[in-house]
């Protein structure tokens, strides 16, 4: 590995985007791998290097940079966000009447995917196991929802109308038609927060006059690895910070062409001594399409790389919890896992 000391720095810190493959994909900074580098983990160093910058945050999505961390840990956050941060979702659907065209099973599946606005931290997991399956849910682990709707003809519709929106009443069942039925003291406990679907315009079924739905749903707490409906995020992913280096001066028409090879805002053209000179302005915006490598004269003047330890996270919430809370929750989950592991290590007798 230590063959060419000159590019060790690059191998350690950059992922290189070649024309046909990605180079240096694996992190290799384990202790003792590189002579002259001290890669032992130490807290001070980590604290010095590590930082999180929130770039963007709104109620449904956030983007933040996580710098100075190993991909394994960054990936753990992503995986936990997808699969292990709990939420409440509809788990049991009791169909009392369903005369609509949608089959019971399909309807149940559709309902399950509707995000339910309820803070999962305030609820317990329902006991899994054979004997508890028949049990009624209690106020601490279950939310009961109801959907009761019947379609009828609109008496005020004009005679010659053919538009179902005008002809019928309630012919579209939306998530807003789902109502919350508090169990026990839930009405008092959650008095200030409204429990129900996050979005009120999710189409659940279409009805025609005479058809009706009468459904009771039970929501329970669960995690995304059990079923995608429990996943609190639409998606959570990260990308590495792109880095574009110009190896030589690019001028004139070439500069224009170079600019077009990248996403807008990545390359700017400056006027230096009456000549147009390309300059990398904001490589973060690049989508890494590697378009530049298709130009024979340009492919050798740029170096496309990505910073190995700079993760640009994007977390898109389903709306149940704000994304920043989700990330904190994810960190919590990881901490609990670590703690459990440490406990396990402590409790096992070394034999």
């Amino acid at each position, binding site marked *: 590995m230590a063959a060419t000391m000159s590019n060790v720095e690059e191998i350690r810190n950059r*992922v290189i*985007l070649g024309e*046909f*493959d*990605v*180079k240096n*994909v*694996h*992190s290799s900074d384990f202790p003792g791998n590189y002579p002259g580098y001290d890669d032992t983990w130490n807290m001070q160093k980590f604290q010095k290097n590590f930082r999180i910058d929130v770039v963007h945050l709104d109620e449904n999505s956030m983007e933040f940079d996580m710098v100075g961390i190993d*991909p*394994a840990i*960054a*990936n*753990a956050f*992503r*995986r936990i966000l*997808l*699969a292990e941060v709990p939420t409440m979702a509809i788990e049991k659907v009791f*169909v009392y009447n*369903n005369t609509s*065209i949608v*089959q*019971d*099973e*399909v309807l149940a*599946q559709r309902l399950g*995917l509707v995000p339910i606005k309820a803070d999962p931290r305030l609820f317990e997991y329902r006991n899994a196991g054979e004997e508890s399956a028949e049990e009624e849910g209690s106020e601490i682990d279950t939310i009961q929802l109801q959907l009761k709707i019947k379609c009828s003809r609109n008496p005020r519709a004009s005679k010659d109308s053919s538009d179902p929106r005008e002809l019928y009443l309630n012919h579209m069942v939306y998530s807003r038609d789902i109502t919350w039925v508090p169990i026990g003291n839930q009405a008092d406990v959650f008095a200030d927060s409204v429990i129900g679907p996050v979005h009120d315009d999710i189409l659940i079924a279409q009805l025609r006059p005479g058809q009706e739905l009468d459904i009771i749903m039970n929501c329970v707490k669960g995690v*995304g*690895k059990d*079923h*995608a*409906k429990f*996943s609190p995020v639409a*998606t*959570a*992913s*990260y*990308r*590495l910070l792109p880095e574009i280096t110009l190896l030589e001066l690019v001028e004139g028409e070439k500069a224009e062409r170079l600019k077009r090879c990248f*996403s807008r805002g990545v390359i700017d053209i400056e006027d230096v001594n009456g000549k147009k000179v390309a300059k990398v302005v904001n490589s973060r915006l690049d*989508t*890494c*399409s*590697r*378009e530049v490598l*298709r130009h024979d004269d340009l492919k050798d003047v740029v170096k496309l790389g*990505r910073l190995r330890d700079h993760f640009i996270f*994007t977390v*898109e919430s389903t709306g149940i919890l704000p994304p920043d809370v989700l990330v904190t929750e994810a960190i919590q989950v990881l901490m609990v896992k670590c703690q459990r592991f440490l406990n396990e290590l402590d409790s096992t007798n070394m034999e």
Partner: protein
Amino acid sequence: MEVLGGEFCDMTPQELAAPVNTITEKWKLLPAFLKVKGLVKQHIDSFNYFINVEIKKIMKANEKITSDADPMWYLKYLNIYVGMPDVEESFNVTRPVSPHECRLRDMTYSAPITVDIEYTRGSQRIIRNALPIGRMPIMLRSSNCVLTGKTAMEVSKLNECPLDPGGYFIVKGQEKVILIQEQLSKNRIIVEQDRKGAVGASVTSSTHEKKSRTNMIVKQGRFYLRHNTLSEDAPIAIIFKGMGVESDQEIVQMIGTEEHVMASFAPSLEECQKAQIFTQTQALRYLGNKVRRQRMWGGPKKTKMEEARELLASLILTHVPVKEFNFRAKCIYLAVMVRRVILAQGANKVDDRDYYGNKRLELAGQLLSLLFEDLFKKFNSELKKIADQIIPKQRAAQFDVVKHMRQDQITNGMVNAISTGNWSLKRFKMDRQGVTQVLSRLSFISALGMMTRISSQFEKTRKVSGPRSLQPSQWGMLCPSDTPEGEACGLVKNLALMTHITTDMEDGPIIKLAFNLGVEDVNLLCGEELSYPSVFLVFLNGNILGVIRDHQKLVSTFRLMRRAGFINEFVSISTNMTDRCVYISSDGGRLCRPYIIVKKGRPMVKNKHIEDLSQGYRTFEDFLHEGLVEYLDVNEENDCQIALYEHMICKVTTHLEIEPFTLLGVCAGLIPYPHHNQSPRNTYQCAMGKQAMGTIGYNQRNRIDTLMYLLAYPQKPMVKTKTIELIDFEKLPAGQNATVAVMSYSGYDIEDALILNKASLDRGFGRCLVYKNAKCTLRRYTNQTFDKVMGPMLDAATRKPIWRHNILDADGICSPGEKVENKQVLVNKSMPTVTQTPLEGSTQPGQPQYRDVPISYKGSTDSYIEKVMISSNAEDAFLIKILLRQTRRPEIGDKFSSRHGQKGVCGLIVPQEDMPFCDTGICPDIIMNPHGYPSRMTVGKLIELLAGKAGVLDGQFHYGTAFGGSKVKDVCEDLIRYGYNYQGKDYVTSGITGEPLEAYIYFGPVYYQKLKHMVLDKMHARARGPRAVLTRQPTEGRSRDGGLRLGEMERDCLIGYGASMLLLERLMISSDAFEVDVCGQCGLLGYSGWCHYCKSSCHVSSLRIPYACKLLFQELQSMNIIPRLKLSRYNE
């Protein structure tokens, strides 16, 4: 420059300089065409022709029945009609019926056939109108179907899918298609070589009355006629003489006076000379001795000579009309045959049997008309027989034939033929099996594909390549891709998108026109003119019409007349330069397709016409009538110069292709970019598209089919084709757009296995619904007993229904929405134990005894009851149909396929967090191993992915139409515009390690189909289970919960390995081990320690042998062979 000058010298400079206006959207002609013709319209046209025209002709041909008993008695048919479909509610009360009602109630969608008759009763002449004689199954969307002329809304009101093409029958609740049958064309001379290389000619003549085959063969340089009514081959010269051409000179003149022709015919004349036959009488006498005796009962006895004359007139070359023994036309026909054979001997000019111009396609209408004619004749002869029997007997009431007209003979004949597919008509010696098939409703495409299927008469087992291979003349007529693999390969074909099949036409006006255009009547010629080098023979539907001097003028005027609309657009005319003939065809069953007419290097269809078309000012018929577009059949196509694209038009071009992608059929039309695929892949997809689940019609939820597969969330393909739009596949899709990453993952993806994303499955990808039905009828029996449905049985203690009856309602039928488990009862039916009428005198028990015959559910997984239908069928028995539903999410082992013949099973389901993701955070739904590409060479799939990706980014659908579609370059430019890689390869991060992957991954949406093969229906394992009664060995097959056989080869392995104890266990202990008592003294089998032969028990010992072995010994004993077992102790 010189080359150019030669080609365009007759154009003015202005013309040359004018910008070339290409017709931009000539594909718009296609939807216009499909509105009037094509796809299933030929079935409907053919059926319409049958019930409106042909049936009247059949009636005319058999219009009068007379009786031998009374010369005064007769019955004459005046008219015949086929009515509208109806159902008899009660006696003599009918009401119109909809096709869907017939489907649900297991009835036949049929209409009454009524006749107007005139007959005598006593001395009265009576005219009766609208007498029913039987019922005719009605083809859906034919002229007599209730669906025709209705709007989509009205059709939907009848519970019918507006997109359903029709063209099939509903018989006893089953949808049946009469497949298109391919045959060698009738009444044409086919010159061919037999296996020894000898040239011969054959004609299969077919008229309404008779069918016969006449062969002309050459033996030792002499010509013979072979016919199955002649006991041996007859010398041709004798036939000529028998037909009244006594002079040798005349014969030779007719055949041809060229030196070599005369030379090759001379031996035949010589033979005739040797046989001492010079006159017609002698010839007829000679032939009379050769006639195979036919049993002719009734009618006056004929002499041998008369018989021979009859034979020549009506059996040999039946299709050439002979009026009052005027053999002129037939002689000339025979002479032409001889001449053909002589000419073919020199130059190798034998005809090609597989050439599509020599083929005719038989459609539902033609097949039904054969059947109906047969049944009608039978009906009439039955009436005659009754008349003959009853008239002589003096009765109080006068003989009234109307009372003896029974409807069921014709009705049952038609229904049975269609429902079994057996067409056996004794009159034509026709006995075909598998003419009809059940319409496959697996997907919309499979139903539509079935309507365009053509089955060939060739035997499937024969290993011949000729009829199976792709013929150049199939271009544009039959789909080159859509054929099954295996034994029926190349024999079962499919129509292309724009093919139309002609129906029969009146030839009277055509004959008249031909004569007016200068054709000289063959009957007025002396015979020698036929072989004049300046003259062309004119044939009409295989019959010689006459000769023409200026054939080019004839052909061009004829075509002009046709374009002007004076002749039917489907009449074809073509010249054959080698045979020096002009063929005019107006018969049914020819394949044809429309082309744009090109004149002077310019297509007649202009942009303004297309504009008119899209604005609805013009229809396809207008294009035909104005001479912009015309139909060409295979023969005429061969006579034309057709440009594929507009820029290919040169000076000689006569026609322009409308759109090249129409050369593919319905199934191949679904494939995006098929022209980039290796051809067998397209063929595979054609077979697989029919197994894809999706939607089958707008009325799918009203249907109660035996098996129906639906997709929970079907999607339109991102990359569509023109064909997809034309056949409404996007309205009834069968598949989903899956995001595919082409990469290897985990090793569970070898051998084409796919990796699925668990989160995608959670969200509904590939989720399907399987519907099955359970049926039950409640009958009434002859002894006034009837079936009953009983309420659920209650448990004595709890007063709750027992488990098996848990789902039953109070009426004893399961209720909708309930979950059914294996062995639960759906209908608690019970049946009287005695159903026969009790014998006279025996005492009738007061209360009939009942026996439970429940309809119970069988299946390894639970189902839900979707709906219950209670109705009555045609026999007035109660009919209960229960629709059962299962929802299935994809699991490991389920089969998926893209639209490029790339099938694979699911090998692993991976949680989303383990899936690789790209920069935008997208996880694939499917991971496909890249090893699927190099050997399959399905470049079309790669392009589909690119086009799909660009379409997703752009928010539009891309086209992958064959020989067109979105260009790769444009599509890739789109990708760049949205910041993606030009080649569609994305930078992807592993979901497991969190580090980027070393390779760029080809990533994007591809349309995936879920195929009907699912593990749930196939998985099978058994530890213990049922055994066969006879051998006591485990049963066979999954349906009987059978064992898995350790077969011969596996046995050989174990023997080779020396694993004798394992063998013993597998073959005996785990199978049919049986304790037998064997007597050591006599070696016979004893019973419970006692030898019945020795009458002792002292030498009896017990041993274990396979039960089958014991059975064998006993069976041998039963046929007087005594197998004796010799016992000895193993330690002695």
